[in-house]
């Protein structure tokens, strides 16, 4: 498999039997379709119609199906369309309460998260279409949403220039919510709307890079919750892509140039250019990186999709998406069992069972409030700052095995509390007796 994936530009008939097919999908702002191409051959695949989705509004839900939020709103409500991989028509239409801009799904494709125009963020369960949670994320429209590598954190960027990091598990902690803090981090250093966010592989300790209309890209540390770098570009940055080695990122500018920014930059300004799409300064609108074969994909205002080799800094291939500006590019990996015919049938099987549409309203929870246990060592300031996916797994495991360490600790704590209250009780009793004695003596004195 690895050999196949590393030799991308060469293509032969035998490759039809590879285990993984890498295709790219792209959508546009204006009325059009979602185009898909085989990355290796450059062959155009199915076109999914109709679709006009905003930036970051297109996502593959696992490898199950395709979802895109729509710019064209029907009344006050927004719309999200689902396509199965093998049919060009929309199969499922959902109409959330408000127009959704950013849309993303976790890597397994079990949850879909959408960011609304008003700044609300919606979390749906794919299998049932249930709206699990809706919360106030930002003051203005949510422009981009990204899951961390382990799917435990959600990073959202907004038109108000803020970047917030949410822990998916803590979102459901009603106690925390009552205390008023739902987000893990709240970064406000950007002065204009955030256009794109990328996150590296560090899980809950990852570095994230955010791009903004204020012409800067900023590097943040999730572990420390603070700004590490702020790099100024000669133009506003529309899109970001992270190099898999993690030390550089690519930034697509409004001046048609793709810049190379170093995470570890020592200077505040970045002028290193990978390449420029066109002479007429058509803005780069989106970027994607394909780790298999090390290719950088860029979409631009004039509807061109360009595949770059970042090493040589030359374009390798271009796709024509049509007249409208490209709003999204995504690299999709689909795994096959054996040959093409079989996969088609397996697709069909998958495609037949698209999930129900996403619900509009949150159903009130019946069973009390939800509390997430604090992680172990939470009393030590260094460890209390985050909840990682590993921790969640651990807690689940502990829940399954009754009488585990967690419950023991809880018992210990209760015992201690019990002891304390007993002591308190004694104290009160003693006080009472003393008082009584005093009163008695006084009484005696009076009678005497």
């Amino acid at each position: 498999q690895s050999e196949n994936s590393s030799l991308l530009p060469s293509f032969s008939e035998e490759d039809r039997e590879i285990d993984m097919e890498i295709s790219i999908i792209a959508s546009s702002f204006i009325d059009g379709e979602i185009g898909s191409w085989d990355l290796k051959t450059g062959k155009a695949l199915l076109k999914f119609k109709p679709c006009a989705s905003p930036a970051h509004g297109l996502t593959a839900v696992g490898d199950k199906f395709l979802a895109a939020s729509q710019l064209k709103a029907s009344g006050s409500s927004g719309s999200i369309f689902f396509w199965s991989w093998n049919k060009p028509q929309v199969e499922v239409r959902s109409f959330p309460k408000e127009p959704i801009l950013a849309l993303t799904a976790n890597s397994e494709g079990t949850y879909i998260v959408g960011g609304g125009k008003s700044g609300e963020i919606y979390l749906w369960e794919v299998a049932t279409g249930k709206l699990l949670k809706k919360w106030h994320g930002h003051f203005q429209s949510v422009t981009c949403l990204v899951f961390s590598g382990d799917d435990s954190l959600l990073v959202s960027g907004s038109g108000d220039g803020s970047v917030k990091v949410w822990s998916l598990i803590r979102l459901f902690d009603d106690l925390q919510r009552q205390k008023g803090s739902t987000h893990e981090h709240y970064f406000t250093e950007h002065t204009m709307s955030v256009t794109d966010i990328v996150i590296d592989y560090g899980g809950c300790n990852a570095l994230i890079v955010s791009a903004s209309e204020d012409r800067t890209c900023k590097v943040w540390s999730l572990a420390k919750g603070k700004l590490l770098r702020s790099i100024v570009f000669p133009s506003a940055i529309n899109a970001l892509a992270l190099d898999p080695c993690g030390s550089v990122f690519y930034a697509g500018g409004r001046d048609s140039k793709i810049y190379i920014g170093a995470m570890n930059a020592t200077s505040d300004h970045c002028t290193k250019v990978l390449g420029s799409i066109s002479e007429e300064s058509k803005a780069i609108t989106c970027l994607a990186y394909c780790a298999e074969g090390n290719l950088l994909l860029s979409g631009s205002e004039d509807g061109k999709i360009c595949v770059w080799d970042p090493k040589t800094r030359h374009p390798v291939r271009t796709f024509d998406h049509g007249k409208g500006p490209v709003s999204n590019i995504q690299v999709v990996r689909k795994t096959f069992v054996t040959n093409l015919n079989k996969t088609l049938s397996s697709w069909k099987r998958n495609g037949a069972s698209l999930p129900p549409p996403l619900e509009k309203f949150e159903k009130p929870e019946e069973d009390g409030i939800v509390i997430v246990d604090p992680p172990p060592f939470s009393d030590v300031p260094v460890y209390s700052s985050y909840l990682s996916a590993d921790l969640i797994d651990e807690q689940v495991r502990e829940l399954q095995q009754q009488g585990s360490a967690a419950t023991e600790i809880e018992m210990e704590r209760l015992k201690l509390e019990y002891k304390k209250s007993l002591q308190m009780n004694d104290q009160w009793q003693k006080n009472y007796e003393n008082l009584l004695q005093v009163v008695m003596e006084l009484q005696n004195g009076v009678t005497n």
Partner: protein
Amino acid sequence: MVRPKAPAKKQQKKAIDFKKIKRKLGRKLPPPKNATNTEIKSKAIILPEQSVGAEKSGIATSKKGLTLKELLQQTSHHNPKVRKDALLGIKDLFKHYPAEMQSHKYAIIQKLRERVTDDDKLVRDAFYKLFEADVFPACIEDNLGPMVSLLMPYIFSAMADSSIDVRLMAFKFFHLVVKNYPPTFSLYAEKILENYTDIIQKNHFYVQDKSKLKVALSGLEHCLSLLPCDESDTESQKKGHLQKETLLAYEQDVAEESVRFAHVSEKLKEIVGVLINCFQDFIPLIRARGGLDEASFDCINHILCGVRYAIKFSNRMHIPILDQETASMLLKKLLGSFPLNPENNLSGKVAEWYFILNSVLTEIFLEVSGWSLLPWDISCRYLKFIDNTLRGKFTRSIGESIHKKTLLALVPFVPKLILRVEDREWRDNFMQAFTIITLSDCEPESPLKLALRIPVRVFISVVRDLIIPNGDILYLNDPTVNNDQLAWVDELPSLLTKLGNKHLVSTQQFVKEKKKQRIEHAISVVLQLLIDLGRVGCVKKVLIDRVRCLQNAPSTFKEDTRKFFNPYQEEGAVEPGGPFARLPRKIQELALCFLYYFTIDNFSPPMQRAIVSCCLYPQLKPAVLYRIVEVLHTAYRDGYIQITDHLSFFITLIARFRESIEYDGRRETTFQALTNLVCSCLSEMGDSSLVLQILEKVFVEQIILKPALVNGCGILRMICTLDSIPTRLSESSVTALSEFLPGYLIDIVNCIPEDKEKLSYLYIYYLVPCFHLFDRSSRLTEDVLKRMRLMVSENTRAMLESSVQQDGESSRNSVKLIQCIVSVILLMHNDVKARKIISPFKSEIDLILQNLVTLQSSSLTVEGKHMMKIAGERLRIASNSLLSCTTVTML
């Protein structure tokens, strides 16, 4: 070795000579010999004293001729006087040989440190002075860490000495060490605190021995002030540049400050308890009739400040140090005793002392998170004090600087106070008081004004906390939204303009760089707040609310914002226009971000005019101009600006921008870059045919006004960007264009000297939009050529009719015009593409040629005839080649 020996020998000889001279007393010696003698004599007196003196003259010695080594040895002499003298000698030696200190510092400290525990007072004093004046100042540049680690064990042992004086000196000396090397405290925090607890508590200096107590207390206060408080850290981080940490590299486990101090909480608790007890001891003195004396004031002040630091630390770093017991003690013994001067008849200085103590107590009160548990009457006393301070009611008896200091300490607590006080009356009171302080700055008559100049930074941070605590809007959905809060927001733009003007003045006059930076920082702070308000949607809300709430006092927010951006005076205004254009680039960037948020539903025509006049301001840097266009375009894309407003902004910009044609350099001029930018924005706006439809009328209107060459070119380029092949322009627009273009083309030739080869790119730049238009509409080409032909023939007729050489001026003009038209045609002919476009209209060119021919045979001046001849020749060649061109295409 050579030098020292020589004088010794001489000395011996001279001694013998001297004796001989004495024997020959009767004779007079020659004077010169004597003179030399005396000189040597004086040397001879010094040397015999020390037998080993011979080896020393190259080495640094003290006044008494002792080397450092000897002096160090003597510091442990059994006689205290010798020890003291040795220390003084070292001091003296360092004075003359500072380098000696650097090279031997570790050896010196290793020897000297024993003297911390010296049992003689004079020796200890000398030791202290030596370190204070010489050792530490000399080492201040290099790392004191190793030196301190050498000293500390001895200091600790001295701190535990049986003699109280030794102990005190140890504390005093330790204080000196901490002053010079603050990390000392964090390294030995636990042990140090233990020692302080011990000396203050167990050895109970009675209140009588205040000077001794003061030594310990001042050191302790200094140490506690070194406890980290998160707030100041973040403040400095925000202010300064980001530290460049290495990313993606192995990071050593550097413990955070808070973690480093986490284990001292127990000790801190103890020390707070001890301090409170100590304070208790002073109560009788405080309550005494005549008030405090200075020494006890110092002691109490140290105590209270120490407590304040400790509590601040525990609050900010979330390390609890107050358990039930200490907390109740704190409330009862310390806070309960407020206010400290029940009698009011105290004189100046003493009253001031009491005021200071009270304000420190108030700070502690505000820091203690559980103060709401205090009995209400005590809380009320504090609240009253705060209120009075805010309103400046003490100013008569208290010095201005002290009052200001207190105010600065108290003001940051105002938001918290307002949030926490449940009593509505108090809340309104504080709100009002704060508004008075902050906004009274605008009224010069206010008596408070001078005393209460709060730095803008503090003001802004408080306002921010009041309006958007935790980055969240607080009162906006509250129906009882306070007018005061709106008043602050309303005030911000005018504050901005004021600061900006101040900055302007500071750039014009010679003002210290530091002051200028301070103003710049203040501006950026205000802008940052405005941005934050904008991003939470507050600006919009405020504007609406202000309109609704205060009909009689309309909001000045919009006007002030406008004034800030508009570099020209508004009608009737006396003062110069807004300072935006003259601010540094970084602040301009911030201001533009604010503009972006301000545009949300607020982009009114007056604001637009302000921005346009800002863009057209000649001193504005091009980069800022481009950025304004970019920001407004973003605002348009996000739906904040109406399309018509946005388009009219573009047109106005292109039509009004003033720039002369530049001849030097091939670089893009500002206007060319601007045109490119606007064109690319236009092309991003969606269906270009629709945009063209909207704009067509405006374009025609502008073109009829006959704009200058550069602006005309800009407009033509805009049309080209939006138009397609074949043209979508209406008939009437084409007619308007055909009226405009001949003049435009002639202008090109007129304005750019023809002969310079290197300027051909300029021709191309201005001609290309015309060619595009011609390409898209053959009617336009025909009309333009026809018009030019008519011009030629008209002029020809005029020249022929006017009697010979009478009207020299007009005929010269006519000749020039005809020449220009010929040049235009030649230019078109020179371009391969344009040649094809004009080839169908060869007949028009031929007609022009005929006119030229007639002119040549007319009664023109010789010069004119010659010119016409040349022009005619060139045109003929062009026309011929056109013919061949058409025939080729026909073939």
